[in-house]
């Protein structure tokens, strides 16, 4: 009975227990974050940390600037207060210190065991989402020294680098899977840009459009969260105003729409020249054989020389942009500052200073826009044009034309000024500039770098693939005296593009392409007079397991074929199987099981 009593007691309690358990399951099921939701939480954290590290970098940079120039009111005014020889010395010494940091730092970093990258774009696109912490710190320190001593290079580069590093470290510490880790690094980059420009929407689209190459919600969502949190934290730290807040633009006559809509054409065609100029500077400096510290010192000295003429060339150009938008510049002043800024940026970029060219690009675009606006004002004074309005439009158009990312450029120019009245003109001109630039320029600012890194990664992966691992062992073959009827039947029965012709010892004699014979497959008159030997291609490309994968891909392009025959060696030419392009791609994509399955079933 006692036993029965226990049972009775248990059955009495069980409905409550069952409800509690059900509630617990429901809570776990509905409130426990999935992988996608946890990415959003990490993105928010990365956004906050990105903004804090960016602010720390900014403060440190200001402190170094104060040490170098004695000024706390910005880089341009700091240099303006220096004597001519000080303007020359400060960037030169800064370059020397930045170069020495890189030089010594590279020796320090070389001792690291793990093979990682320092480039956030590489880590996101082709890497494993791991950024080298030591190398990033060295690069950022070098950038800090260059930027704070007046070099004309963007501060946003190191800001993005540091916040990406923070994201990468979180991914490593939490042992987050590689695809998600890459995404977190992308969030870090977006947070860095958002805190640098206070432009969260543009920052999200910068990473999505330029680095990820897609604007689908799955990838854009976490970027938006990271950017918005970063921008919000930056505002909380006291930087609430947009960088170049517009005081409002008005069209005095509707006819002004015409010249305003043509800014994109001018800037679009100028962009390839600008990119070419930067590349030429890089090539020129690469020919100068000097140790890194001296090369950066030389770059600093040239910038210092230009600063003697006009201190406005110093720094990334934030102050200059503000000045261009909010003060009246005569056309010859604008022209002079564009030329000097171009020279200073190309020198810094070419000499290998760590940093970005994003803000200098905005300066050049804005300057060209203002110059165009002043031309319109001169030619049609009745329009009463405001050159600054052309400057804002030019800035966006030039950004679109150089980065190949018109959507990001529209949003960036809009967020930097927060002037809705100019948005339609921005949109038109960014798109027009992008198309005009695309006529002459196929490699945009960040695309070229990504292309180079992607190619290097691809070659590295390719070298690790062994042809023998990817061979399918049962290729479709026919003897050389197979009749045309047999050939036709083989092509009908199998969906391969080529049939291999072998002798009795399986020696590969050639291949027949479906493309060559498809128009004759329904000709019964050929059945008795044509055999395989009559129509086979004896020189059809083939590979052996001795070949590298690079050779195999080269032969694929020669053969215009999805599949290549594999022979044991190039002397005996005994056919052992075939290799397909799809399997190589699946293998390179890391999906080795898919490649194996594909080999098994095809």
């Amino acid at each position, binding site marked *: 009975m006692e036993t029965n009593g226990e049972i009775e007691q248990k059955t009495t309690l069980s409905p409550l227990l069952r409800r509690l358990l059900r509630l617990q399951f429901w809570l776990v099921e509905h409130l426990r974050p999935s992988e996608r939701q946890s990415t959003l939480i990490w993105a928010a954290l990365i956004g906050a940390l990105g903004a804090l590290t960016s602010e720390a970098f900014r403060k440190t940079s200001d402190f170094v600037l104060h040490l170098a120039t004695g000024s706390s009111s910005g880089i341009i005014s700091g240099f303006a207060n220096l004597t001519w020889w000080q303007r020359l010395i400060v960037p030169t010494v800064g370059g020397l210190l930045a170069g020495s940091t890189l030089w010594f730092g590279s020796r320090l970093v070389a001792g690291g065991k793990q093979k990682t990258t320092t480039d956030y774009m590489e880590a996101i696109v082709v890497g494993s989402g791991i950024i080298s912490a030591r190398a990033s710190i060295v690069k950022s320190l070098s950038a800090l020294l260059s930027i704070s001593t007046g070099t004309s290079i963007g501060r946003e580069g190191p800001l993005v680098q540091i916040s990406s590093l923070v994201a990468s470290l979180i991914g490593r510490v939490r042992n987050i899977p590689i695809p998600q880790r890459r995404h977190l690094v992308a969030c870090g980059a977006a947070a860095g840009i958002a805190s640098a420009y206070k432009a969260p929407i543009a920052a999200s689209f910068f990473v999505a459009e330029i680095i990820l190459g897609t604007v689908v919600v799955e990838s854009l969502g976490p970027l938006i969260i990271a950017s918005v949190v970063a921008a919000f934290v930056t505002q909380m730290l006291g930087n609430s105003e947009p960088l170049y807040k517009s005081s409002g633009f008005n069209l005095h006559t509707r006819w002004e729409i015409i010249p305003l809509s043509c800014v994109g054409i001018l800037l679009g065609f100028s962009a390839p020249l600008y990119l070419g100029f930067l590349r030429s500077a890089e090539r020129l400096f690469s020919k100068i054989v000097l140790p890194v510290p001296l090369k950066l010192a030389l770059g600093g000295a040239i910038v210092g020389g230009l600063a003697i003429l006009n201190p406005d060339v110093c720094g990334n150009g934030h102050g200059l942009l503000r000045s261009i938008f909010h003060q009246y510049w005569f056309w010859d002043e604008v022209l002079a500052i564009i030329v000097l800024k171009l020279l200073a940026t190309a020198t810094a970029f070419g000499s290998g200073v760590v940093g970005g060219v994003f803000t200098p690009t905005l300066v050049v675009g804005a300057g060209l826009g203002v110059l165009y606006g002043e031309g319109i004002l001169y030619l049609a004074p009745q329009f009463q044009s405001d050159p600054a309005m052309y400057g804002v439009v030019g800035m966006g158009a030039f950004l679109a034309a150089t980065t190949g990312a018109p959507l990001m450029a529209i949003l960036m120019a809009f967020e930097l000024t927060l002037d809705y009245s100019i948005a339609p003109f921005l949109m038109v001109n960014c798109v027009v500039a992008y198309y005009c630039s695309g006529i002459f320029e196929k490699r945009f600012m960040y695309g070229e770098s990504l292309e180079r890194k992607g190619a290097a990664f691809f070659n590295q992966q390719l070298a690790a693939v062994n042809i023998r691992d990817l061979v399918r062992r049962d290729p479709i073959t026919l003897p050389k005296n197979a009749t045309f009827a047999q050939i036709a039947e083989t092509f009908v029965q199998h969906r391969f593009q080529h049939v291999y012709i072998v002798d009795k010892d399986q020696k590969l004699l050639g291949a027949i392409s479906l493309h060559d014979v498809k128009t004759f497959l329904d000709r019964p008159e050929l059945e008795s007079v*044509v055999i395989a030997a*009559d129509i086979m291609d004896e020189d059809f490309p083939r590979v052996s397991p001795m070949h590298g994968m690079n050779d195999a891909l080269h032969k694929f392009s020669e053969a215009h074929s999805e599949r290549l025959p594999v022979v044991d060696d190039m002397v005996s030419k005994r056919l052992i199987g075939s290799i397909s392009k799809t399997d190589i791609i699946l293998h390179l994509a890391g999906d080795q099981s898919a490649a194996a399955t594909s080999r098994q079933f095809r």
Partner: protein
Amino acid sequence: MGLRTGVAAAIRRGIVFEKFSNAVIKATPAFPGRSIWYNKDSWGGYRVISRKAIEHLKGAIFLKDLEAQSDHEAISKMLDLLRSHPEVCNFEMFAADVFDRQQTDPPLFPGGVAFPHARTDGVMTLVMAVATCRKPIQFGDISVRLIFLVGVPKRAGGDYLELISFLARQIRRDRAMERLTGAEDMPGFIARFVDPA
């Protein structure tokens, strides 16, 4: 698209049609371009005659009333006709490849036509010799009265298929053998080829 519609569209484009015979039409474009030949098929419609094949035939060497005791002799005599052909760069190789191909699987068409041929590096472009035989020559079990000897460069597999397909199709027509073996020279042979009437 039927010929009638095609002709109407073609006339609008300025193509001039010329009646070559009851069964053959020659179409010449108004602007510079090659003429296209059509002949009547068994359904009363018209089909394009392979221009390439006709051009190969035009360049062929014709031998009337070839006499030989064996297929080997017949092929040797025809090869001799091509010995000094400007497009034959290595006659020995060409001849060896033809005999090699004959040994693998002699290309014969039921009804008495032989196609000795080879894809070879011994010729630079497609070369051809045509022979008619008053007295049939034995090629294995088949008594042959018409021989097409063809040398094809290794890269011209498509041309070869087009030519062989065209020749075989024309020969399958009614009384084709009688008409073709009655030809006196190459122009006459071609005329009988394109005009089945």
